[in-house]
């Protein structure tokens, strides 16, 4: 709370300065057609992996515990490692693409987005803080942060797939896990697309 209050005067001063100069401002990074096309591509890639998960995974805990050699099963984590890795790489590419236009935002835009990020982190802390650290990022761009969270979903999915508690020692998810992932992926990409297409003139 104190961080937010400390920043309020500087945001007000910036707004007043803008008022007296009647300048045009850029608060959010501009529309990027390629970023949206690449977002659709990663949606298809993840969706295809999920479809394979749905069609190959057991329905119940009993069905799963009856699998004799889990490591040979089509729904085992080992059969999905390559796809998780490809999704991680493609998500990195989206983050880089989004970053390339983040500098076009004015100082006032950076400050406003920074405040929103503080609110988001305070109410729903990130589950993938290491992604930003690994990529050496220090951005306030809401667009970039959304792509970081998209990558976070893929990283978490891989971790869940090899979680021995969740998969009862098999590294195999159940069909419902995959079905709910499909719904989450759809909503995540929809949120990104709606936000980014609102910038299109």
């Amino acid at each position: 709370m104190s961080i937010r209050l400390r920043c309020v005067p500087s945001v007000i001063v910036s707004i007043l300065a803008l008022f007296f100069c009647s300048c045009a401002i850029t608060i959010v990074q501009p529309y990027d057609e390629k970023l949206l096309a690449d977002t659709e591509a990663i949606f298809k890639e993840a969706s295809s992996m999920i479809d394979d998960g749905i069609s190959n995974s057991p329905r119940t805990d009993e069905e799963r515990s009856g699998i004799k050699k889990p490591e040979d099963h089509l729904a085992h984590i080992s059969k999905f490692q390559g796809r998780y890795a490809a999704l991680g790489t493609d998500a990195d590419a989206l983050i880089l693409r989004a970053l390339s236009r983040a500098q076009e935002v004015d100082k006032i835009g950076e400050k406003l987005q920074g405040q929103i990020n503080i609110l988001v982190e305070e109410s729903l802390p990130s589950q993938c803080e290491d992604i930003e650290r690994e990529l050496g990022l220090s951005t306030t761009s809401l667009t970039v942060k959304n792509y970081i969270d998209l990558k976070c979903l893929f990283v978490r999915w891989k971790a869940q797939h090899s979680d021995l508690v969740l998969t009862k020692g098999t590294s195999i998810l159940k069909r419902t896990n995959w079905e709910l992932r499909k719904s989450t992926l759809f909503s995540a990409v929809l949120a990104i697309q709606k936000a980014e297409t609102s910038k299109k003139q």
Partner: protein
Amino acid sequence: MATINGVDFSQVSKDALAASKAVLNDEKAWANLKDIIKDLSHGLTRDVQLIAKRKLSGEFNEDDARAYIEDQKTLARMRIRSVAIVGLQLAEKIWNAIADVFGEAINKAIGWKLL
């Protein structure tokens, strides 16, 4: 309000207000906001219905629910940011529409192209 070099600033204020109202009537932005919020309620209803059904049939347990909630937390962060992006985009458009009207009026009133 004052009239300077033939520029009636009372009219300029009205023009600025009309310009910002036009931005607020941008149906595309409101439709995008509506879609994000509609997906939030539809998505959650759909998921909870599925979970309730699969819990009864023994296809979904408490550990599965924990994994699902983890994903929903990340998704909620994305939804909040997306709503904020649409809102900030509207604010940007309103500001720029007002700045255009006042910039032009100030230039005309002073007689120099300063803004």
